[in-house]
Each structure stands twice: as C-alpha cells, then as structure tokens.
C-alpha cells in the first residue's frame, strides 16, 4: 500500500496546476477521455494505462494540466469508473480530493440498447435515468422506457 501511494504521489506531483483522475479501470480510460470532451484540447495531458494497483490489479490514470472540471461533468464518469478519485492540484499540491457521485440522469453519452427505440433512428440526444442495483448500474431510457446496461456507453 505504501508503495502505491508513493507512486501516485510521484505522478501527481509532476503537475503544477490541474486535475488528476486516478483509479479509473484500465479498459475505460479512452471512454473517460471522451466523456470529459478531452479530444483535441490544447492542455497537456498525461495518460497512464495498466499501471499496477493493489485494489484494482490494473488501473488507469489521467492527468490534465491547467484544467478544472465542474462536478456535474466529472460525475458522468461514475457510470464507467464509479471508484475513480479526483485530485485537484494547485502549485504542485493536492488541494482537494473528491469521489464521484452517480448522476440521476445521463444525457447524451449512452446509447439505448433497444433497436426499436426512436433514439436509434432519428437524430435525438439520448436521455436515461440511472438505476443503482447495488452492484451494477442500469439505465432507464426516457423515450422507449426500456432498460439498458452500461455497455452501450459511447
């Protein structure tokens, strides 16, 4: 555990100002970049995938320099990375640590798994209510009222 924390601190301390997203499941790092709209931005971004983690086995980490997100946007990550942590860095120091809260509504980032849903046939932004079944999250489509799982994200 001690080592792990030191590893993380080392990575974090390289950032002067910005946001570090840690404990992202390794396989969803690219999705996380999509959800945070980080494609094509000018900020310096460091991405780590398959870093070793005591708790998760393998994890991913994303560091974005000079960028701070609204909670609402960060919370969208809870769908794919519920245990991710957010470190806010100012002047090389972690000034705030946050965990994610599952949003009650998800707009635009998931796809309805019902092939007969109107959202799969017309240019409509999807809209879901999140349902927490304890160990997994399902999504109730606002339009067709069918339940999708989170595999349909992006």
């Amino acid at each position, binding site marked *: 555990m001690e080592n792990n924390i030191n590893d993380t601190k080392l990575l974090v301390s390289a950032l002067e100002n910005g946001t570090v997203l840690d404990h992202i499941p390794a396989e969803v790092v690219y999705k996380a970049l999509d959800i945070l709209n980080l494609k094509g931005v000018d900020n310096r971004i460091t991405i780590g995938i398959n870093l070793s983690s005591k708790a998760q086995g393998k994890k991913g980490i994303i560091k974005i320099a000079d960028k701070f997100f609204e909670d609402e946007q960060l919370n969208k990550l809870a769908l794919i990375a519920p245990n991710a942590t957010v470190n806010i860095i100012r002047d090389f120091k972690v000034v705030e640590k946050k965990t994610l809260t599952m949003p009650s509504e998800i707009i635009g980032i998931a796809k*309805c798994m*019902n092939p*007969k*849903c*109107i*959202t799969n*046939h*017309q*240019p*409509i932004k999807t809209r879901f209510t999140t349902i927490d079944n304890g160990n997994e999250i399902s999504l109730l*489509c*606002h*339009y*067709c*009222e*069918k*339940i999708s799982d989170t595999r349909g994200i992006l």
Partner: protein
Amino acid sequence: MAKKSLISIGDFTKDEILHVLETAKEFEQNKVQNFLEGKVIASLFFEPSTRTRLSFETAINRLGAKVIGFSDASNTSQSKGETLKDTIKMVSNYVDMIVMRHPLEGSSRYASEVASVPVVNAGDGANQHPSQTLLDLYSIMQTQGTLDGLTINMVGDLKYGRTTHSLLQAMSHFKTKFIFTSPDELKMPKEYKTFLDCKGIKYEETDSLEEHLNDCDILYMTRVQQERFTDPMEYERVKDVYRLTASMLDNVKPGMKILHPLPRITEIDQDVDDTPYAYYFKQAENGLYVRMAIISYLLGYR
C-alpha cells in the same frame, strides 16, 4: 393552462385516472357533445390500425372537432426522409392536439417534447398505449363496480404484450392481486415483477390456463402478436398455446368478465361470445367514451 400530453399511463396520477373514468361515464350517457367545435385535431398514424384510429377519429367527431391526418406513412414526407421532428413541428402549427401512432418506441414522448400542442400516444411500438389502458380500467370499473381489491388473471403474451404491462402499472394503484398465465417463453418481464415487489403487490405465475380460471374477477386475454417476434420458430411454438372455450367456464365466479384488447385470433373461441362472461366487444365500444374523455381533459374542457 400548461400543455399536458398523455404518453405513458404513468403520466396520469391516480386522481387523474379516476377523473378520466368519471368523465367517460358522462360521455357514455350523452354521446354527442359539440363543445370542441372549431378545433382541429391531427390523427397521425405512421403504422396501420383500425380500431384505435377509428375510435379516436369518432371521438374527435363526436366532440365537434375536425380531424386531419393520415393512416399510412407512405403517403407522407417521412417517405422523402423528413425527420419526425420536422413533421411534428409542422403539424403543430395547424392543430390543437396531435393523436399519433408510430412503430418506433419512444416516438410519442419525443413528439410531445417537440410539439407545441398536447400529444396523445395511440401506441408507440411495443412500448405504451395508454388510451387502451384507460379503457381497460373503465371496463373493469363498469363490470366490477370498483377497481379496488380485484384479482386479475392476465393470459397469453405477457412478454411483448404492452397492454398487460400498462394495465399492471395502472392497477398497482388499486391493491390488485395478479395472476400471470403464460408459456415459459412469454413470461412477464422481470422489471414489471420487480415493480410489483417494490409496491408490495402480490402475484402468482402459472403456465396453466385452467389453474386460476375460477378464482379471478377479470380474465385479461391477449393475442400472441406475430409482429413482435424476431424469431419465427419461437412464434410457431407458442402461437396456439391457449384456447378458451365456453365449456371451460362452468365454475368461474358469477361476476367474472373476460377482456381482450382485440383483435383475437384463436385464443378465445367464438362460443365464448354468447356467454355472460364475454365483455370484449363492449370493452372496445368503451374505447370511444374513454378517448372522448382523454381529449376533453387534455384540452382543459373537463
């Protein structure tokens, strides 16, 4: 008054449901009331339907309003690639209300968000058909004198049958006991059973039509709908699984009534029509009064 649409049965509170049923009773007693004279209502049927379309259009006429619309999407600009949004926006400019049926699920909810006038969902694929649910409730109330504390036996396609799903949601307000009679392939989906569990409502499942015939107040029969199956083999296996005949009804409760959203194929034998238990034709007639009540309520006249 804020625009109010009817897309899912869940859009109406228990009080609104009871209000619409009460209003429908008024229309059954007095079938012609012209208070919507001068109004125009669009009847947009992107998918064929006889019963629902004719009963909505009759309801509109009996209230004194005029109908515009189509009964087949191939004659419309949709066939030229116009989006549903554009069609609805355009029609909204002409009319006071839109009644629509569409093969895609969620289309009516979307239309209600785009339209500037109230939208009534007359069926969106296998999803919702709330006017059917309200006419089912009206028929139950009419035959049993109450909606409270009844035992309802739903029979047939409980997996794809949207009428059973909506009826279940609506009856959950009224301390109902449910029996689900279906073959294994067509059982009531888990999400609806979870819904009942959460509300503390009792239900039993069986694959035998005989098992609970004699202890229910309402026998709600449904057709196995070929159009909902993606696997033709599965349809062949289950299509003729239940067939209700008059001889099976010897020991049913005296006040028991058989409902069916129609059309029926083989699941109710013709000889049942002449028994005192058959109520499905009267049920279809009730659709007219209930639809008059829905339209009047949403337009703020009742």
